[in-house]
């Protein structure tokens, strides 16, 4: 099966389970450690944002995560019922100009942008749907081996 679906509560410690499942999914499909590292980091940054800023304090809610591999592209979809938030509308970090503002915010999404090929946001009903896509390196397997 090339797709898994997970559901977690909006609590930071639950992210560890997502990273475990993600790493397991990718490793079983022969993906190199650097791809696993980059996607774990992208997932963690996105989930941290949703969990920290998406909900009123004390509000418990579920976050759905789908991970699929389609035609050498990993697609990860995050669905939450938090307040409407389009990460793509946030201001990009200007690493040159705002020296000490680096520590304030925006770094997480900056990292995600660097690690994935595409990002999409939709608001559907009461849900935020955020999708990242990362194309896998073509030469991940040794030459001559076709699979």
């Amino acid at each position, binding site marked *: 099966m090339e797709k898994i679906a997970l559901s977690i509560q909006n609590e*930071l410690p639950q992210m560890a389970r997502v990273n475990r499942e993600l790493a397991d999914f990718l490793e079983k499909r022969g993906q190199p450690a650097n791809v696993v590292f980059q996607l774990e980091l992208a997932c963690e*940054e996105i989930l941290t944002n949703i969990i920290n800023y998406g909900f009123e304090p004390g509000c418990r809610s579920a976050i759905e995560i789908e991970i699929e591999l389609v035609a050498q592209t990993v697609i990860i979809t995050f669905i939450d019922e938090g307040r409407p938030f389009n990460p793509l509308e946030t201001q990009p970090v200007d690493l040159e100009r705002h*020296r000490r503002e*680096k520590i304030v915010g925006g770094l997480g999404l*900056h990292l995600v942008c660097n690690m994935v090929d595409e990002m999409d946001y939709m608001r559907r009903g009461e849900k935020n749907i955020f999708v990242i896509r990362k194309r896998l390196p073509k030469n991940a397997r040794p030459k001559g081996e076709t699979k």
Partner: protein
Amino acid sequence: MIISEFKKDNIHIFNLQGKLDAATVPDFRKKFRTAAENGARFFLIDCSGLEYISSAGLRVLFSAAFKLEDLEGKIVCCSVGAGVQRVFDMVDLSSEIQVVSTEEEALRILRA
């Protein structure tokens, strides 16, 4: 995350093993603050065992560097693995924190 601390002369060394992320940053921040409050100004972060760093980890390193700049201290990272180095490069960490390959080199810079 395992954080070990050592002192060499006036240099405070943190050896980080595992992941510096949202879950482990509070522990590191607390240890850094305690050391700075006790007068430490020169810090070496040994990243040889650091497997992973997220934006929360980067923020705590940046904020440590800015605080030490105000206190006329310094922070240097050494022995960074390829994955973590790539993340450092994405945010241009080396514009604020010197990153060198060996502990000896880092100690030399901090003693200068």
